[in-house]
């Protein structure tokens, strides 16, 4: 029978939640790396027992950990992230030039085919790659140096490269997103990049239609249709049908189109999930009701999913990397909250139950479907 392993990064450690395919009884392992911020944990699609974790601390900086046995044992690997060449400057919050400085790894994206290869999205925004299981890291500097970098500004959470999407149909194509620069794409394996923000409209920047400067919160795709992208922007839920060359808004009837997380059903490429958040200053669900919204039409028409979720006095947030789906026949949906709950739905969102209720604030959730 299949197994599901949920990898949870929190403000004070990592947790691993496991269940069989029924997904109603769970074992909780952790905290791993207790006391450290775990921005992200993700497994290799090519070897599910190979995990990578980003462990960081204001005191001790960045550590990268790997496991070869599904998270039972871990070992630190390389943690030197050095920008190539002269890093130059980006804009600071006040518009003045500010030197690029490495702060932390937000997202680790293992290769689809090679367990030793993994990408790291970092703050200040840059993309790194390791081809030796995390021992050494080299920047794909073409992303940072493609030309608009001096105009990028940090979002409130920092100038982070938080989203990395590998195209399963084209090993040379990678999408990334940066707060608050926007989305970018390479079609040559990371040598050259171009902004893909046409159609995004951000009223909070001087030119709402600018080439860069948009606060993209997260982007998702379905592996069977990797040219179709779905984006949760600072405000607005967006869709592109041409690999990001053009975007259109699909917020439709959402109660708020602000939010962070977005994901796609494992078997239905037109079924999306978001968690509306009230506003950029009120980072909690509208009306104190925690609702996942599902669209079965690729956006625009959304239905609230509430069964099993708190519908009063709920003021948690769901962060950008804190939603994921499994690949079982009946697709499971998972998300974690800043209140420390991890919710699971074994029926594509129709009903929900907490796997755990009282973890530290959840930063990221990833799911592995195991044989």
């Amino acid at each position: 029978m299949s197994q599901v392993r949920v990898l949870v990064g929190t403000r004070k450690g990592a947790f691993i939640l496991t269940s069989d395919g029924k997904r109603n009884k769970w074992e909780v392992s952790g905290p791993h790396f207790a006391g450290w911020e775990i921005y992200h944990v993700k497994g290799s699609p090519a070897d599910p027992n190979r995990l990578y974790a980003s462990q960081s601390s204001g005191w001790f900086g960045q550590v990268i950990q790997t496991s070869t046995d599904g998270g039972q044992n871990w070992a630190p690997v390389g943690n030197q992230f050095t920008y190539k060449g002269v890093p130059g400057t980006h804009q600071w919050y006040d518009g003045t030039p500010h030197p690029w400085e490495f702060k932390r790894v937000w997202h680790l994206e293992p290769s689809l085919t090679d367990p030793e290869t993994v990408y790291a999205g970092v703050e200040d925004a840059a993309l790194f790659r390791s081809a030796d299981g995390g021992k050494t890291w080299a920047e794909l500097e073409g992303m940072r140096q493609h030309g608009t970098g001096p105009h990028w500004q940090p979002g409130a959470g920092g100038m982070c490269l938080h989203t990395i999407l590998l195209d399963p149909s084209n090993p040379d194509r990678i999408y990334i997103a940066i707060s608050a620069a926007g989305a970018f794409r390479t079609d040559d394996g990371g040598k050259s990049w171009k902004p893909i923000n046409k159609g995004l409209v951000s009223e909070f920047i001087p030119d709402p239609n600018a080439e860069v400067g948009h606060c993209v919160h997260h982007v998702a795709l379905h592996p069977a249709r990797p040219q179709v992208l779905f984006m949760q922007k600072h405000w607005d839920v967006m869709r592109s049908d041409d690999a990001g060359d053009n975007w259109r808004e699909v917020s439709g009837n959402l109660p708020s189109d602000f939010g962070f997380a977005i994901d796609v059903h494992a078997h239905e490429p037109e079924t999306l999930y978001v968690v509306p958040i009230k506003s950029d200053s009120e980072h909690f669900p509208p009306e104190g009701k925690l609702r996942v919204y599902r669209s079965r039409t690729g956006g625009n028409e959304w239905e609230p999913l509430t069964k099993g979720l708190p519908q009063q006095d709920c003021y948690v947030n769901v962060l950008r990397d804190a939603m994921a789906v499994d690949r079982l026949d009946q697709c499971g949906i998972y998300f974690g909250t800043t209140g420390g709950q991890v919710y699971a739905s074994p029926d594509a969102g129709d009903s929900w139950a907490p796997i755990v209720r009282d973890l530290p604030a959840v930063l990221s959730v990833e799911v592995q479907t195991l044989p």
Partner: protein
Amino acid sequence: MTGPDAARKEAASSRSTIRVLLPQHLRTLAQVEGELLLEVTAPITVRSILDALEARHPMLRGTIRDQVTLQRRPFLRFFACEEDLSHHSPDAPLPEAVASGQEPLLIIGAIAGG
């Protein structure tokens, strides 16, 4: 005595056993318990101790000082003999009590929230 034997003897005489106490999180990361005893070649300075520490425990690279600039991380402090040595040059000789192993070098995480 001349030749390689003399060189080895001289090198041995210039090494000291230094006591180092790491913050708890770094002891966990390095998988050590209690104080560390490090063989450090003179001169006994913060730099020479950290060089020896990182050589024996490579996973600590970058956690106490930047790997490129070698600057101390801002929320860490170096104490010894009831003194804060954090703002001294990393090449300044440490007190004799540290060099002789009577007193440990304490690497301290700042008391800060979060």
